[in-house]
């Protein structure tokens, strides 16, 4: 058994989700190799080499890999990965974009978004947005897998891996990078946040979301919304938590003015602790909340903010 982890990085820093993925890999085997494909990415290599359990860091440092476009990276991962029994990447937007392309190049199926590893060929993954949990067997010679970050702890530091470089490169013209617009918000990204506070139709309008923002600032939280709030035009679509929006699993999820439609619950019910604030005591959200507060949010939120 040989396990390859595809590192996620921006050419200067290794993303934490790589550490969760290494931890998943270490459940399969006591050592893993890490592939760093990028350009001018020595710092990333240095960070990957000190992860505990990493035997080898394979570096493909080439300008052709600068933006890590799948048209260039997938053939590289397939080329290096063909000698491995398992290829793992985080189930981030980067991993989700890349890995099925790798799998198809290797003519194997992929197991997406695993939350547990039962054995070297049996994995657990949510389906129906977490409303059912499937145990799947992969009899593929090479198991291509994406890993849900929140389901695995981060691998520790303290390793000293050997670094080798690969000169395999794909110079392609199918796709070109045009630009990137990364949010400069001080707030964490919704799917990576440890605290999420979301508003629903009860917020009444978009301006009132400022009440959530004030609390989010105090808790270092990301801000989400229910589909009802998005459909009503209060906030943009990318804030939607739910079956067809973002799936989150923070340590603390605070649902404010959200009734708790199935659609929404599917996106947040894996959260460790759920708080619901709603003036309707019969709102279904209270059936999944660890702590419910039946109150008018326009009174409760300012009070909560002042007392945090």
């Amino acid at each position, binding site marked *: 058994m040989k396990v390859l982890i595809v590192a996620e990085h921006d050419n200067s820093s290794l993303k934490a989700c790589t550490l969760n993925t290494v931890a998943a890999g270490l459940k399969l085997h006591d050592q893993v190799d890490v592939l760093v494909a990028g350009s001018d990415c020595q710092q990333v290599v240095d960070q990957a080499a000190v992860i505990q359990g990493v035997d080898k860091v394979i570096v493909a440092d080439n300008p052709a890999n600068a933006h890590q476009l799948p048209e260039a990276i997938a053939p590289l991962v397939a080329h290096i990965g063909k000698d491995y029994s398992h290829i793992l990447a985080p189930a981030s937007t980067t991993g989700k974009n890349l890995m099925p*392309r790798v799998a198809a190049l290797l003519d194997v199926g992929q197991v*997406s978004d695993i939350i547990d590893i039962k054995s070297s060929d049996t994995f657990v993954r949510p389906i129906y947005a977490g409303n059912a949990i499937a*145990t799947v067997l992969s009899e593929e010679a090479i198991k291509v897998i994406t890993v849900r970050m929140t389901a695995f702890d981060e691998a520790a530091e303290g390793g000293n891996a050997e670094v080798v470089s690969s000169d395999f490169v794909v110079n392609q013209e199918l796709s070109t990078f045009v630009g990137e617009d990364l949010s400069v918000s001080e707030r964490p990204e919704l799917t990576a946040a440890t605290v999420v506070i979301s508003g629903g139709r009860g917020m009444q309008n978009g301006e009132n979301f400022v009440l959530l923002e004030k609390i989010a600032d105090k808790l270092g939280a990301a801000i989400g919304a229910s589909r009802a709030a998005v459909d009503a035009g209060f906030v943009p679509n990318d804030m939607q938590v739910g079956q067809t929006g973002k799936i989150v699993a923070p340590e*603390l999820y605070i649902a404010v003015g959200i009734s708790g439609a199935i659609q929404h619950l599917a996106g947040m019910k894996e959260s460790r*602790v759920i708080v619901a604030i709603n003036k309707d005591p019969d709102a279904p959200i209270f059936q999944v909340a660890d702590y419910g507060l039946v109150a008018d949010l326009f009174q409760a939120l300012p009070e909560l903010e002042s007392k945090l």
Partner: protein
Amino acid sequence: MKILVPIKRVVDAYVKVRVKSDNSGIELTNTKMSINPFCEIAVEEAIRLKEQGKADEVIVVSIGTSASREQIRTALALGADRGILVETELEARPLSVAKILKVLVEKEGIDLVILGKQSIDSDNNQVGQMLAALTGFPQGTFACKVEVDNGSIVVTREIDGGEQTVSLKLPAVVTTDLRLNEPRYASLPNIMKAKKKPIDIVSPEEIGVVVESKIKTLRVEAPPQRTAGIIVASVDELIAKLKSEARVI
């Protein structure tokens, strides 16, 4: 330009799914089925490209049982020109689906494939990327904006923490995210018109692809149920509980 839009029949997004008592899967009997929401966005985008004069023909294809004709009709009522049903009783997993689509892309001379980023049943998020790999096309996944321009397509993609824009040479594969557009409702005259639009029915065998997979579902279970917690009386009590009991703040 010819656009192919693969669509999938899935359990309606607003239905609460139930696991079968023998843990073999999800109960689908008497369950409301719909076109997968991301697929609907793909159909809408293709129709808009046609309305802008960028596309000549929009073909929808679905792989599944004869019941999938209903979803193909829905797409035709929204404005697609014709449909293809690749009829099979077998559950086609993403690699098989991608292989079938590859044959159709080549046979129909498709310039652009637009499909949902994932289906809300199996949540795999694989078919578009796999099809791109098999055809050798570039891919623009999780699109929130697309612009077709002179042999290329500029796709703005939703990525963790923001957006990325890439330019792809046509032919290409685009997968849709939620923000790409808001699908229209089919008008009654268009629903009537759709009944006359052709749907070709073919089998995977005729296409030359064996529907098979080395990935098998062993067991499906309901997720651990959350039990309702407690109702706190005040903001003060809430903060106290979060600090001392839950230890999350």
